[in-house]
């Protein structure tokens, strides 16, 4: 992998959020599992996300033991692993397509694949591949600040940490201190997956986080419909949709127009943001 990006003082992720803010709208952040249904199909699907209106892409790295994921993303991870996906393969996809895609890419992963490679090696490879940010779902800032965050920071790759409804003030501050680009607020105390309703206290919770955090706040977990996107966009700087797109890929995996269907769906989800 060749070093080919020199970062300005502001990361591409920060710039993407700033651009959305100028348009007075929230950023749309779709999630897909890299390598599902195949490594070959992934670049087309990523293009579809961009064409549909993605501002930032969360690219899932599969792990054999995804404790934070519900059945939909578990199945996708298994398909991707069976199709030969791995952290190496995902870095390769980013390296080949990041520039062409033109939107920041955040790797959404469990910590062990990163740990197995060594954090310094990973940080260097991520930077060289053009990865813009990294979120490890089972690496809280307590451990992340000691291990991964310094290595990523040295390579100008953004660190993104989760904040949950259970996070105390101290924990929110710790996540914010460890993050750049944005923080990710999990809208539900649950595993990933689609839900019929948002929790009623979500707006209040997001405001609580926004008061303490200087970075953009993206909200994900359980958001799957344009109506939910619209509602979350009123209080958050960014809206993450994962499982429902992963399910669309699952249900249309054999279809020749899978990418077109995905693009259409992303278009529907982003429509409320463009009004």
């Amino acid at each position, binding site marked *: 992998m060749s070093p080919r990006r020199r970062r300005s003082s502001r990361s591409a992720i920060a710039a993407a959020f700033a651009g959305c803010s100028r348009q007075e709208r929230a950023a749309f952040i779709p999630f897909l599992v890299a390598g599902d249904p195949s490594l070959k199909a992934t670049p087309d699907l990523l293009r579809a996300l961009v064409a549909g209106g993605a501002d930032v892409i969360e690219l899932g790295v599969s*792990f*054999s*033991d*995804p*404790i*934070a*994921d*519900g059945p939909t993303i*578990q199945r996708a991870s*298994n398909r991707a*692993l069976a199709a030969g996906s*791995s*952290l*190496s393969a995902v870095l390769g996809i980013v390296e080949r397509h990041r520039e062409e895609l033109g939107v920041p890419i955040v790797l959404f992963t*469990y*910590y*062990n*694949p*990163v*740990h*197995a*490679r060594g954090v310094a090696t990973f940080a260097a490879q991520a930077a060289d591949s053009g990865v813009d940010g990294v979120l490890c*779902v*089972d*690496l*809280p800032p*307590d*451990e992340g600040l000691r291990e991964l965050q310094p290595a990523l920071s040295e390579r100008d790759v953004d660190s993104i*940490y*989760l*904040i*949950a*409804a*259970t*996070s*105390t003030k101290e*924990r929110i501050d710790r*996540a914010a201190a460890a993050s750049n680009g944005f923080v990710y607020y*999990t809208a*539900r*105390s*649950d*595993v990933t997956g689609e839900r019929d309703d948002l929790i009623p206290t979500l707006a209040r919770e997001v405001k609580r986080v926004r008061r303490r955090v200087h970075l953009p706040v993206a909200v994900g977990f359980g958001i799957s419909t344009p109506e939910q996107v619209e509602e979350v966009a009123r209080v958050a700087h960014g809206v993450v949709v994962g499982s429902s797109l992963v399910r669309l890929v699952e249900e249309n995996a054999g279809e020749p127009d899978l990418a077109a269907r995905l693009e259409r769906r992303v278009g529907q989800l982003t429509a409320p943001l463009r009004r």
Partner: protein
Amino acid sequence: MTSRDRVRTPLSAAAMEPDEGGRYGVYGGRYAPETLMAPLEELSRAWDRLRRKRAFQRRLRHLLEHYVGRPTPLYFAERLTEHLGGARIYLKREDLLHTGAHKINNALGQVLLAKEMGKTRIIAETGAGQHGVATATAAALLGLDCVVYMGEEDMRRQRLNVYRMQLLGAEVAAVDAGSRTLKDAINEAFRDWVASFADTHYVLGTVTGPEPYPRMVRQFHSVIGSEARRQLKRQTGAADPDVAIACVGGGSNAMGLFSAFLDRPDVLLVGVEAGGRGPDLGDHAARFSGGTLGVLHGARTLVLQDEEGQVVGTHSVSGRARLPGRRSRACVPARSGADRVHLGHGP
């Protein structure tokens, strides 16, 4: 034993007891999704408060004596000693405890803790079923709801234990994800807990998981080692054996026994882990010799994994031993200095 490896890594004093983050040197820690971090902090605080409380200790001691059946005998195996013609062999009979295994020491302690914390529901994982049966028993005794996650493959192999758990009023939830064995049952229990921590306590069955589990589970099992020392002293005049041997699946009974001898440099500690079909990855459950440092089930530990950090399957004749993650407390003696723990492999 088919082979023996010596592990020589210096152990600092700091690695014997965890730091404030639950780290034992490079092992341990608290690698959990953010949603669980505050509940884990709450659990650490509750455990630190209760383990010092006289009333809690009294209650636990009372139940261990009158319900569980402690102390267990330390039996001089005269015929085996004669037959093998070497060491004088003593067996610490944890198998004679209620429910048939040492697991109840920890399960009962944690369920008692959960009740004190005001939880009304208990979840647990189980491999061979012993920890599930012990947890279901403790939950029934103390009047808490209980769900035990168990891999489909393990349920098939251990049907009798499934039936026992159900008889005790527990729901046995089949896990069909991944390899359908213990590691997947642990994953599923964590997934439940992320959504249920408000009224639910997760009774982890061995010395793994995020802080405070390794030290809490070790503490509940330390009664094995402390009893054994007392009994050995009474029977032989000397409290320290030359060698202490324990099987290591998850590591909880080994830590229970070894914890009494960690500061006794003359006692050779031997852990025996499952060698399975052979030394190739996926054919065994021997993590001390085949594992590398990784992060699994909330802790940094030795993990059987490929070079991409994907956890691989294990093979063992035992259900509980089929765990690809080495437990941080067990890692400590294994990596301890002065050749403290020797490893052997069985099937």
